[in-house]
């Protein structure tokens, strides 16, 4: 039976077009488990190599690639997506929603993630992947020092992953703030939903910073700019950008696991959380503090003592809220009726492991100790105790929600066996690393004194790996032969996901969930859904659940990025890029034109984000992340220029005048785009179309002036037509010749071209959107619904604001 245009679950087509949050959740979980097996296999290879102290099965280069891929795959492609599989499936159920706010964007997040993972895998077949560690320290992350072509592809894959996370972030922020059941306030959200909410707020800032770092790294790879080879601080610049993202990332990975622990501790003890509001406040505090400790990863670098001291104090500061959270969980045990089921075993175990990880982390917080632990197995052991403790809780979550997702019970005995093997293997593996802490990280041969510990770790690693065979066997049995689970298989569960069938129907609930009376009730659905009073005329329309565009956009982006990252290596790559770019444009237009109905509940949007339409709210969240991207570019410029000597720095444009003229052009375009909005509101079609075309024209003028200025970029191509011919015949030598002020001529050139280039790309994207609006407006659109005009306008003004800062920084000062 087809469910509102969605093919049945047995059909492959359903899984390609579905936008339903539960389907996407399942896709996330399955894909992440695939990457767990991939990353785990790499880990076992590493452990095998370290079985003896000498050379064994891997070469130094292969080992470096294995270590790098293991880290990146486990952190980016397993842990976070695994957690977001649950977030997708469970969060809408916990808050009483039918789906996420932007179902198609949710599907887009998933497909971008999958194709990012595939791009990563491809890198191994391009003559070697990245081998710079998951931290990708500069300048080893550049072709000059590590010429594997696949390394550039990895940068592209990570960029694509960042795009996936950004889309997902927007979706979850809007969903959790605007789709809660009536009577469910922010404060009353279940703990897992709280943990996801705080996770996505951290993601919003942190992943934008990573996005900026990767864009710059990508420029260094593809355009030969010299950011990270700049001796006046290129390496440190990468470290700052990476760890500004990297430290919050630890909590981004750990918080969802913490959410699972907080849920299961309550369910399986039959007790509510002790000090609930303090736990929530502690988590909010961690969210904020996570951005204030990043330099504790850089204690041994040349940063000054003052900032080290400050970061040390902040690091102590961030351990304290965690103390509180841990004690709250422990006290929740007291006076409970603890049922030692598999999910609880995993979560109890996770807490034990996290405590060990936390205590060993305090060692690293003391700078004097950190000086010695830096780069050793102490660090490796510590963060595995923390991160894999998170993984442990998530595996508990998989057992906890398995009956909800599949409608089948798993076998408890096998589950406990899994836990036993897992816990023993885990501690053999990682505790041995504490004992061999004097050994440097990421070496593939070592001194014989450490052999016993390494063999212990290897044995532990294989036990840990083998324990998953039990898990997969258990789930396989359960799926085909397991007893049927009803809607609520766990005694003392409280949250709303257990108040519907297992698995829930397509739109989750028979009635509409409502907490007005202080407990969950279901009120009848009115005839014909309301749409939240957002002015859309769809009153008797049923929500859509299928779209082919998310998959299409991801596929075309994948093709384009695969080509772009190795541009110039071979004509195949150049072709792929151009094909991918145009196909992505077509797909984006297809996505925009599709009439997809995803209604919002009337009552969902409450403090502090009430009274703003989900699209506009989503646009603002996106702009916040774009602020961080531009801000990080500007920050990188300031950092590099400061290291270089601020006033010794030469600005690239010889004249400020073209920049000033462009400032006027952009300000005028900001005025015309606001005129478009006014005319749309007044129903004046002529005015609307004219303002949009004027804005488009001004944007074109901006780019013309820009490219005239950019002539410096084309040292050997005398004229623009010549340059264009060079571009399309894939003969880039005249463009980036070694002589003349090209991109790679100096760090001044690099920062100027890359930062203003990022801005120019923003202008181009804006022009595509403006052109699209103008054509649709010409055919009569937007007169009764000016929203798209307003939202594109928001973006356009932001591009203007960015220039407000770029102009003085790159032209005058």
């Amino acid at each position, binding site marked *: 039976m087809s469910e509102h245009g969605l093919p049945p679950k047995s059909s492959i087509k359903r899984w390609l077009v579905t936008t339903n949050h539960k389907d996407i959740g399942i896709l996330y979980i399955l894909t992440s488990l695939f990457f767990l097996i991939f990353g785990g296999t790499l880990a076992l290879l590493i452990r095998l190599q370290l079985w003896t102290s000498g050379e064994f099965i891997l070469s130094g280069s292969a080992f470096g690639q294995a270590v790098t891929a293991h880290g990146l795959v486990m952190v980016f492609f397993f842990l976070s997506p695994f957690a977001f599989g649950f977030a997708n499936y469970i969060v809408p159920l916990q808050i009483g929603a039918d789906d996420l706010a932007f179902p198609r964007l949710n599907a887009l997040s998933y497909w971008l993630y999958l194709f990012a993972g595939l791009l990563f895998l491809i890198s191994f077949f391009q003559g070697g992947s990245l081998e710079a560690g998951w931290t990708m320290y500069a300048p080893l992350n550049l072709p000059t020092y590590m010429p594997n072509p696949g390394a550039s592809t990895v940068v592209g894959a990570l960029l694509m992953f960042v795009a996936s996370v950004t889309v997902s972030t927007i979706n979850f922020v809007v969903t959790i703030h605007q789709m809660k059941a009536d009577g469910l306030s922010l404060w009353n959200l279940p703990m897992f939903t709280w943990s996801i909410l705080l996770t996505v707020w951290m993601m919003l800032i942190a992943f*934008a910073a990573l996005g900026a770092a990767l864009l710059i790294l990508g420029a260094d790879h593809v355009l030969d700019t010299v950011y990270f080879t700049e001796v006046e601080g290129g390496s440190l610049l990468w470290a700052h950008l990476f760890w500004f993202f990297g430290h919050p990332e630890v909590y981004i990975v750990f918080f969802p696991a913490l959410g699972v622990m907080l849920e299961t501790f309550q369910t399986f003890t039959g007790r509510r959380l002790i000090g609930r509001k303090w736990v929530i406040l502690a988590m909010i505090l961690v969210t904020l503090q996570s951005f204030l400790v990043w330099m504790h990863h850089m204690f041994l670098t040349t940063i*000054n003592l003052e900032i080290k001291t400050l970061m040390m104090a902040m690091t102590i500061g961030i351990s304290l809220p965690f103390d509180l959270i841990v004690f709250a969980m422990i006290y929740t045990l007291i006076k409970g009726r603890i049922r030692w089921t598999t999910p609880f075993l995993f979560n109890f175990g996770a807490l034990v492991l996290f405590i060990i990880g936390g205590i060993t982390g305090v060692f690293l917080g003391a700078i004097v100790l950190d000086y010695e632990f830096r780069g050793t197995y102490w660090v490796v052991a510590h963060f595995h105790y923390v991160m894999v403790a998170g993984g442990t809780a998530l595996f508990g979550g998989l057992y906890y929600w398995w009956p909800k997702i599949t409608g089948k019970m798993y076998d408890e005995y096998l589950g406990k066996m899994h836990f036993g093997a897992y816990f023993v293997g885990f501690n053999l593996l990682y505790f041995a690393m504490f004992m061999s802490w004097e050994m440097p990280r990421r070496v593939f041969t070592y001194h014989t004194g450490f052999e016993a510990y390494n063999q212990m770790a290897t044995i532990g690693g294989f036990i840990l790996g083998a324990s998953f065979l039990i898990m997969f066997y258990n789930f396989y049995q359960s799926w085909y032969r397991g007893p049927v689970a009803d809607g609520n298989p766990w005694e003392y569960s409280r949250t709303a996901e257990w108040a519907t069938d297992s698995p829930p129907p397509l739109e989750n609930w028979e009635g509409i969930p409502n907490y007005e009376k202080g407990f969950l009730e279901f009120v009848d659905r009115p005839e014909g859904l309301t749409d939240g009073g957002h002015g859309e005329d769809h009153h008797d329309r049923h929500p859509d659940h299928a779209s082919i565009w998310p998959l299409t956009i991801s596929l075309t982006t994948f093709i384009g990025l695969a080509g772009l990252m190795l541009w110039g290596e071979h004509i195949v790559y150049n072709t792929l890029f151009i094909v991918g770019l145009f196909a992505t444009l077509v797909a984006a237009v297809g996505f925009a034109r599709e009439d997809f109905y995803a209604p919002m509940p009337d009552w969902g949007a409450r403090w502090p984000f009430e009274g703003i339409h989900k699209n506009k709210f989503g646009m603002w969240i996106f702009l*916040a*992340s774009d*602020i961080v991207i531009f801000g990080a570019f500007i*920050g990188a410029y300031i*950092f590099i220029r400061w290291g270089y000597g601020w006033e010794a720095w030469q600005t690239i444009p010889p004249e400020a005048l073209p920049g000033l003229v462009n400032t006027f052009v952009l300000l005028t375009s900001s*005025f015309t785009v*606001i005129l478009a909005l006014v005319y749309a509101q007044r129903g004046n079609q002529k005015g609307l179309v004219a303002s949009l075309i004027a804005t488009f024209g001004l944007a074109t003028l901006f780019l013309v002036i820009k490219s005239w200025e950019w002539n410096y970029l084309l040292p050997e191509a005398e004229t623009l037509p010549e340059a264009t011919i060079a571009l399309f015949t894939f003969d880039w030598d005249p463009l980036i010749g070694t002589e003349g002020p090209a991109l790679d001529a100096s760090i001044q050139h690099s920062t100027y071209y890359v930062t203003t280039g990022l801005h120019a790309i923003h202008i181009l994207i804006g022009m595509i959107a403006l052109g699209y609006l103008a054509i649709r407006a010409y055919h009569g659109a937007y007169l009764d619904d000016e929203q798209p005009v307003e939202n594109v306008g928001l973006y356009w*003004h932001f591009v203007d604001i960015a220039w407000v800062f770029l102009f003085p920084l790159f032209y005058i000062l």
Partner: protein
Amino acid sequence: MASIKFYFAIYVALLLLAVSKVVFMELLDYWAAVGGIMLSAAVKTGLIAGFYQHLVDEPRAVTWVVLMAVAAVLLLASAATFSIT
């Protein structure tokens, strides 16, 4: 939603502020000019964000989200730069 006249007034103010940047550079010594230019950029941003992007009309929390992002990048740029001085 405001009138075209109002938006035009904002536009004129923005143009004047843009010119002020170049003027500061001519009149003031270097670091004073830096301060003046950044101040005028901040005022421009406030005008655009507040009135063209209508932040003044949105729930206050949206402004806080934007400020949070700005604070994050200011923190990154200033702390990183300070660390190498």
